[in-house]
């Protein structure tokens, strides 16, 4: 997995690529919690267009980020999910829990 950050006006966009699994999900979790808890970013956006695979540890990182964002009154937004990632979130019955958009433009909109 590769993860890089872009900082926009009161938003952080993480561009993530590759596989999010047991080996890489701790890095994603750490990055999410840093932006939400330490940087107090009001909106954190995950660009998942280039994520090929996600396992339950990746889903758990997203859920933890979502819970922290709700506790802090922030937003965790996902976009660009391919069929594989949608399947995993659907299997977890979490697809409707997250704020999900198709494009970055939609994810950045007020």
């Amino acid at each position: 997995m590769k993860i890089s950050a872009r900082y926009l006006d009161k938003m952080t966009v993480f561009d993530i690529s590759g596989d999010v699994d047991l080996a890489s999900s701790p890095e994603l979790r750490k990055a999410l919690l840093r932006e939400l808890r330490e940087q107090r970013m009001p909106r954190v956006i995950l660009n998942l267009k280039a994520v090929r695979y996600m396992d339950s540890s990746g889903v758990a990182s997203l859920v933890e980020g979502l819970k922290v964002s709700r506790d802090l009154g922030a937003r965790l937004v996902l976009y660009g999910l391919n069929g594989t990632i949608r399947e995993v979130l659907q299997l977890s019955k979490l697809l409707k829990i997250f704020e999900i958009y198709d494009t970055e433009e939609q994810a950045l909109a007020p």
Partner: protein
Amino acid sequence: MGQRGLLLKLELQSNPEMLCVVRHALGQLAETLGFTSAECREIVLAVDEALTNIIRHAYRGQEGRPIRATFRRIEVPCDGKQRKALEIVLEDRGMRVDGEKLCGRSLDEVRPGGLGLHFIKESMDTVEFRRKFAKNQLRLTKLLKAPKTKKCTEER
């Protein structure tokens, strides 16, 4: 166990970095056997989650411990017929896994963790766990659906 129906045997170590290697090999194997793309993804997800559980729970995150993964083509009785299936057996020498904990959790509660077993059960046709000779053994099977037969119409 004998070599009957043996397709692939992997001896790996409990290192998270090895998971992607197994995923790629297994995806290719499942595709070669004739599983659909969706079924291939299910098989890969189930095995990945099972290996993750071994690393996290049986070995408590300790790296370098042995895991054996065996993949066989088998036939199983189903609705009075013999059906082809893929059998996957994962063995480790880690801590005994509490059978009651293998029930998974309710998905009604939104919280991180506890999803792996749910993924395995949803993805595979059978999931059996046993402890034998100080080894945990997880046996998974996935039925290979019969190819759709085309009806031929004769032109006269």
